[in-house]
């Protein structure tokens, strides 16, 4: 309800200031009223989830542009110009006022009617397509992964992953085909705006298993946060615990800070990325708390949704070790945030942005060309000895006729060129 009142107050103030701008006789007052309108619009921008534009509106519009206006008004002394009654002989444009008023009102009613008829808020905003990616931790060699008939991953080797690809909403059959032959399938229900991981896992001598689970790619609450999803794909069905390395207690060999306990095979655990460095150990939870893998900070990213897949990797020597495979993808930025605007500006809209730069350059050159005065060469100031010229001759030169007929006059210097400068 507060938001509604805020809208009503800001909107009413904006309209009132705009009307005052139209009606005030003094251009300086008009400019100040326009600033009020612009600040109100900046407030409305804030209500519409665009803090970046609100900031730009205040600094560029209410600040820079209006200062320019005020400067030109004061420079020309144009506060009252064009507002005075033009008088009977200049009144040929007077008929224009009622015509303009009725035109403007007709515009208001026609657009307003169309807007109300259009029923904007009844239309369904589009929802983002579901996205899906493939992570292969299967030891049976490279795999091809199909979602329905779409080839999502081609010859994906162990430990590799694809980036998120969007698919239409619907139910699909996920098919994982290792290069060695055979096929494993699973049913995948693609829901709008959700991101799904397809993890192929399993030992070398078996057909790969498929695990499907969601990855939370929604915007994070604060800049610098991060999300972690841990998935246990260890085929030997070990339950895993995640602990902080620093909190190791040498006395009894335990850890005082346990992040995740008893993560069974095929299950996920979701964590917030903690502040500072991450130094984690993965323990075998069932069997004497033996360390099976370690993880350090540089592999986890902020402003991202991180996925850690714990998988068995068969080394060439035949031994098996646990690999914490980290896959990161940046989460969507908060709608309207400077990061989101900047991202779009430097990816999708880079070319328009550069064209805009050129336009500004052209405007700068245009302003210089338009306002440049013709520069006349400065003449040398001719100095003359003023003593030799009596006051009467000066007055005579000004008036154009003799002031005194019979006063004795000294001769003025014959030419100015002969006069020597005073030293």
């Amino acid at each position, binding site marked *: 309800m507060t938001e509604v009142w805020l809208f009503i107050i800001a909107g009413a103030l904006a309209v009132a200031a705009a009307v005052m701008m139209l009606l005030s006789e003094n251009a300086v007052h008009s400019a100040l009223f326009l600033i009020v309108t612009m600040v109100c619009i900046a407030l*409305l921008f804030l209500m519409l989830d665009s803090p970046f534009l609100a900031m730009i509106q205040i600094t560029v519009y209410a600040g820079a542009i209006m200062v320019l206006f005020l400067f030109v008004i004061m420079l020309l002394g144009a506060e009252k110009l064009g507002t005075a009654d033009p008088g009977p002989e200049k009144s040929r444009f007077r008929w224009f006022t009622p015509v303009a008023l009725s035109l403007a009102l007709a515009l208001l009613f026609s657009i307003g009617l169309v807007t109300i008829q259009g029923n904007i808020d009844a239309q369904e905003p589009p929802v983002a397509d579901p996205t899906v990616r493939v992570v292969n931790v299967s030891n049976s060699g490279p795999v091809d992964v199909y979602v329905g008939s779409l080839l999502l991953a081609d010859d994906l080797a162990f430990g590799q992953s694809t980036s998120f690809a969007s698919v239409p909403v619907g139910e699909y059959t996920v098919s994982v085909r290792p290069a060695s032959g055979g096929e494993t399938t699973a049913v995948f229900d693609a829901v709008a705006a959700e991101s799904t991981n397809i993890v192929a896992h399993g030992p070398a001598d078996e057909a790969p298993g498929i695990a499907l689970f969601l990855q939370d790619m929604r915007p994070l609450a604060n800049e610098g946060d991060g999300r972690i999803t841990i998935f246990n794909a260890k085929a030997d069905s070990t339950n895993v615990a995640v602990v902080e390395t620093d909190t190791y207690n040498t006395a009894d060999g335990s850890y005082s800070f346990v992040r995740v306990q008893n993560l069974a095979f095929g299950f996920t655990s979701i964590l917030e990325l903690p502040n500072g460095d991450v130094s984690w150990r993965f323990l075998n939870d069932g069997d004497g708390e033996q360390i099976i893998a370690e993880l350090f900070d540089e592999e986890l990213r902020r402003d991202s949704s991180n996925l850690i897949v714990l998988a068995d990797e068969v080394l060439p020597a035949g031994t098996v070790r646990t690999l914490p495979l980290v896959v990161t993808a940046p989460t969507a930025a908060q709608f309207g945030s400077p990061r989101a605007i900047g991202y779009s500006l430097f990816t999708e809209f880079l070319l328009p942005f550069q064209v805009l730069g050129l336009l500004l350059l052209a405007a700068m050159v245009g302003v210089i060309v338009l306002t440049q005065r013709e520069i006349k060469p400065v003449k040398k100031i001719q100095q003359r000895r003023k003593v030799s010229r009596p006051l009467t001759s000066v007055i005579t030169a000004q008036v154009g006729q003799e002031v005194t007929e019979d006063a004795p006059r000294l001769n003025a210097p014959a030419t100015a060129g002969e006069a020597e400068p005073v030293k």
Partner: protein
Amino acid sequence: MVVQTESFVMLSIVLFVLGAMGVLLRRNAIMVFMSIELMLNAANLALVAFARYWGNETGQLFVFFVITVAAAEVAVGLALIVAIFRSKRSINIDELHEMKG
């Protein structure tokens, strides 16, 4: 979304029409210019409202571009007004109907 998008669009229409009235009725060239700025602002408001409704940032980027172009336009326009004022000693647009320099 407590306040309906329609309310924002209606407000933007009212501001736009007020700006249009200013362009048609005021005779001071600087006032006409300020009214154009008001119209641009009204259009920006509608763009931002629709951008939020559709959850699409393209509208916000357009507003960013409009603000930048408006800055360039104001600079050139005011330079024109200054140049006209120098030659005619007036910025009343009724007196500027001759195409002579």
